[in-house]
């Protein structure tokens, strides 16, 4: 049999599909690096570049089947045209801003976080789909997590005290009042004193810490940022990001932990991964919402806009305002970061 196989190996290929004979391969890591690593649009606007650096590691680049990118970086139409679909990582504010500047949608399919879909103009709808995270690790009453990782950037535009409160309360309501006593908790919050023109007083940081301490009864371990990315992760670890999704709707850390087998917790959109979903790793991916589902989705409700309204300096007045009015209102109040 061996002779038979070796004879086959040394035969000349009859077609392109047949196995090749004498050949060596030069290992070209640089080519891999370029082809896989440099798929992102260049950030030409220094303000946006600075903002993304400030949002580290949440805004760090990551790669997936639907090309994840920030529309706020202003990718050229030509760049977008070459893509079948992109996954928009922008939060509500930059997305609103981009769609205001670009009333016609990008020339490719755009996946947007489901909860942000209602904020998009009508003209975008045919080219837009919603997405939500799906993972293989789903926690239930029978399978409770053993470890909880809580992260966020302490700033009104990312993790405000109100967002923290509501996140912690939602976890208690989902898992019971004893939840924080029964689980090992690791936290990593970074205070960002200024994003764009929006500055934060240090007292906000103390208030944030106070809420964290009192809710968790001081039982959590504070991680260093480099430690956060070096933790041993498995399917007993739950990840929860305190993120209002005003700036970043698709965070690097969410993908980082889910790709290592952790599960989401406190996220009402959590769902078990199916074969039809877009896989970002063996353990997680995104589920794409069909267009019909978007069409039937109502315009922003009071509840949905309340999240945005929490940035009181930004949005004031009637949250029931229709899209254009709301946009004007927002613009009138001097967008904090994208002032022009």
């Amino acid at each position, binding site marked *: *049999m*061996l002779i038979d*196989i*070796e004879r*086959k*190996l040394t035969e000349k290929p009859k077609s392109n599909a*047949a*196995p*090749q*004979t*004498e*050949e*060596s*391969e*030069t*290992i*070209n*890591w*640089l080519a*891999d*690096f370029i082809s*896989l*690593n440099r798929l992102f649009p260049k950030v030409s606007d220094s303000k946006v570049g600075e903002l993304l650096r400030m949002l580290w590691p949440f805004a*760090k*680049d*990551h*790669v*997936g*089947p639907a090309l994840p990118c920030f529309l706020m970086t202003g990718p050229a139409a030509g760049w977008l045209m070459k893509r079948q679909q992109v996954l928009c990582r922008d939060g509500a504010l930059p997305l609103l801003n981009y769609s205001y500047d670009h009333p016609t949608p990008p020339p490719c399919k755009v996946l947007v976080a489901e909860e942000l879909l209602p904020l998009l103009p009508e003209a975008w709808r045919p080219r837009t789909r919603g997405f939500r995270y799906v993972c293989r690790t789903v926690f239930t009453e029978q399978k409770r997590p053993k470890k909880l990782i809580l992260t966020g950037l302490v700033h009104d535009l990312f993790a405000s005290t109100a967002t923290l409160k509501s996140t912690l309360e939602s976890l208690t309501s989902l898992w019971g009042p004893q939840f924080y006593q029964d689980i090992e908790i690791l936290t990593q919050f970074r205070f960002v004193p200024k994003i764009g023109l929006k500055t934060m007083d240090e007292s906000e940081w103390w208030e944030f810490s106070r809420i964290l301490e009192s809710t968790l009864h001081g039982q959590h371990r504070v991680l*260093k940022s*480099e*430690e956060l990315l*070096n*933790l*041993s992760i*498995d399917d007993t670890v739950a990840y929860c990001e305190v993120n209002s999704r005003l700036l970043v709707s698709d965070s*690097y850390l969410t*993908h*980082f932990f889910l*790709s*290592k*087998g952790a599960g989401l917790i406190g996220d009402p959109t959590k769902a078990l991964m199916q074969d039809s979903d877009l*896989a*970002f*790793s*063996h*353990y997680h991916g995104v589920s794409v919402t069909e267009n019909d589902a978007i069409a039937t989705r109502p315009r922003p409700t009071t509840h949905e806009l309340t999240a945005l309204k929490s940035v009181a300096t930004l949005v004031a007045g009637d949250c029931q305002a229709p899209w254009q009015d709301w946009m004007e209102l927002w613009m009138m109040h001097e967008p904090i970061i994208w002032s022009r």
Partner: protein
Amino acid sequence: MKILLVHANNPSNWLSCQMIRDNIVKMYSLLPNTFEVRHAALAAEAEATRFGRLRHLQNFVRICLDWQPDKIAFVDNLPHPLEALTALRFASCHLPELIFHVYGNFTWEAKNWFELGELTKGTRARFFAASPRQKKLVESFLLPQENPRAPSPVEVLPFAVDNQRFIWDAKLRQLGRTQLGLSDDTKMIFYSGRLSLQKGVDRLIQLVVRAATLSRAPLCLVVAGTYDDRGAPLLGLPMTLGCAFKKMDLATKDRAVGKLFKFVGSINNGDLSALYCAADAVASIGFHHDEDFGMAIAEAGMCGAPLLLSNWGGFASFNVSTQCQLVNSKLTPGGLEFSNFDALTKLVRLLSPIFSPAARQEQAGLFAAKFSVPQVAARLHTLLSPPQAHSQIATTGIEPNTPLFNGFSDHLFQFSQSFREDSPNFSALIATGALYERVYRHYLEAVHAH
């Protein structure tokens, strides 16, 4: 003889390093009663607060001052011993004989090793490299010794494998294959390890696809491990999160390929030994910078698995029988070159024979004789015993004690400056003439098979 074992207070995040460290500690515990062993912990770097780190250092220094060990052995990959030894120097503590168990991150930690060389010049220091090629690589950075007849401070001490967990077992084979749903006639090729740029798993997939067209038996490539996006940091090519998965996803997208491929994720040690037993060949054809040994391969060998390996780094140590095939690889002006033809021929050769439990048992026995904890512990005992015990020393005239360490050459410092995560070194990708070639040619040099 008093030996102080120094390790991190927490286990490493690298699974293989965890096992290596545990097995090294186990080896020291197997030494005869004439060796008194104590432990000291240093704070693992990423987790330590400044206070925590200092507290551990203080404790380490206190043990050294009070207990006066004859030897200090650093058995973990991290934290690097430099800080602890600096603390000892500051405490004006006499440095006893130092033993460094060198891991694959030697080149990555080049700057620290260079500084350690400066700090410990003139002391008695020994480096235990895990493979003959790693020994050559470390030796290439040493300053020449005054006495040319003095023995090298670098010795080969393979990383030991747990011989209780990793054994050949026909029942385990059956169990593993049943769990994977493999038919009796299916030939299983197994890869266990990180799925990263340098590990070449995508190349392995292509290889198995081609082998499938030649093999009469159906083939199945089973992959266990975690995705790793570190890329090639030594060359300044860090990858973005998701790249490793995307690369694999692209490689297996084709339906025909997908049929041959099973990914089983991260596996615990108990299940791993079942998969090694279940496999008809275990393959690893990467060119990782840190491949000083290959712990997963040693474990597979202990389970009697036939091996297909790139002829790179520590993999050459596993060339113990015809059941281990090394694929021709070389450094050319274009870079590292791997022979796909040779790999295909050798894979088909490994898969061709009818499965034989006796052959598996024999392969497992050969590996156990070289890499099991008791065997490596015996070698450690020999290395640690006073050299006067070796009768040949008197006749060869070799220095009776551990030679004085002269430090590392500037070559190591130059290397540490050239290869960093934040400075892409593109010249290294065109290997000839570059520093990369001068250092890593040792990972391709011929060494005597065990």
